[in-house]
């Protein structure tokens, strides 16, 4: 199964504060483990929501809203796409991830993707 792993934003990430070299090195090591285990399919870090835009759909209307957006806990700062056997395996991997926002409290969410079998 595939899971999407969402790293949520923090005040710092929303302020555009870049992770330090230690953090980058640690995360690089974790990513390497994921690749070596054949787990990592894709991943990337997202720029703060000040660079973002939204399109609001309301009936047939389309309204463009430019960032930044305020609800930082709900915003995404980065993602991975993993190939795993089970949710538990994804959880075990995620527990081994360094804190993406060192010193801060943040949440990382794992969401399984719908698969072909779910549509059968």
């Amino acid at each position, binding site marked *: 199964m595939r899971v999407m792993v969402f790293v949520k934003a923090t005040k710092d990430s929303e302020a555009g504060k870049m992770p330090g070299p230690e953090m980058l090195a640690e995360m690089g090591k974790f990513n390497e483990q994921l*690749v070596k285990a*054949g787990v990592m399919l*894709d991943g990337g870090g997202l720029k703060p929501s000040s660079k973002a835009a939204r399109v609001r759909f309301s009936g047939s209307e389309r309204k463009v809203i430019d960032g930044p957006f305020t609800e930082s806990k709900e915003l995404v700062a980065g993602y991975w796409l993993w190939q795993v056997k089970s949710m538990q*395996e994804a959880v*075990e991997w995620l527990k081994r991830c360094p804190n993406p926002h060192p010193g801060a409290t943040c949440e990382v969410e794992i969401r399984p993707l719908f698969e072909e079998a779910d549509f059968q």
Partner: protein
Amino acid sequence: MADPVRATLEAVWRLESAKLIAVLARIVRNVNLAEELAQEAFVAALEQWPGTGLPDNPAAWLTATARHRAIDVVRRERRGAELAEELSKDMVSRIDPEADEPAAEDSLRVIFMACHPLLPADARSALALRLLCGLTTAEIARAFLLPEATIAQRIVRAKNTLAEAGVTFEELSRAELRRRLPTVLEVVYLLFNEGYTATRGSDWMRIDLCEEALRLGRVLAELQPREAEVHGLVALLEIQASRLATRTDAAGRPILLLDQDRGRWDRLLIRRGLAALERALTVGPERGSYTLQACIAACHARARTAEETDWRRIVEHYDELARLLDSPIVELNRAVAVAMADGPQAGLDLVEALAGEPALAGYHLLPAVRADLLARLGRHDEARAEFERAAALAGNEREAELLRERARRSGIGG
């Protein structure tokens, strides 16, 4: 999965078992024994964790438990008190699982042992799933649609074969790795195909097998980055896997490549496949059979519509593949590509030349291809007879049905 402790343990097992076996094999110098010790630690966890709760670091717990047992074994075997002493000291300083991560060479050695040329092909696959993917005997049995006892026996027999031949957890020279790499790649390839050609059973179970094979291939590509054919194989599997969802219709009937809905091909896997192919071609220098097959798969993947397919280029790849492999099946595929590039008569000429080929006797795709080409030439009566012959030879009922359907349609404009 109602039991969360067991579910977590299984997840940890999947992450750690191959590494654990490698660490233990380093101590006891015997992969079979290492695997047994790892299993014992798993069972111990299964007994203890429900009572004590999950340890803070389940991986470290498993490793430490298994290492204790390994050291006991070494002691019992009187391999010298000194050695045990040394290992025991070593263990204290290495309880951190990070530090326990064996060198890449250790994992490689386990892979090469599971795929040892002394073992029959089916045993290699079973052993690879067990040792490298952390699958249980029951899971392997389910994947192969065989009774659990059969798989268990296969694994035991394989281990005995290795033990009798005195195969130990040994250093492999670069030349030795090179020489045996094709066997390892073949195991991955066969595993994938076992799932891909879903001849029996529930198709979704088979896709698991494709995913395991692909994962194994990806792991191998990281361990042997300088071997072009590893990347070629991974490229081939990624691209083939990108079409998994479109290969059959809702009723499970096969859909031919050119009729598939390309909008539903998995773009991520295609992108990964093309990147792996790029790596294979860069590492080079010469293109092996997996790389060439990946080149062909890539031609299809790059074509946004079936009409856009670069058949000329595909024929060139088949020419090269035919020179390399000398296989009638490759020749047959080449004939199909030639028919697409130069018209059905050119393809048919090549197919006719294969008619007496003993390796293709009884192979349903020979009459199926011939029938298709005859139909395209408007020779419908001959086409119908060939489709019927192909249907009679096809082992897969759904494929046979498709061929009978084409036989019925021959002559009425189909």
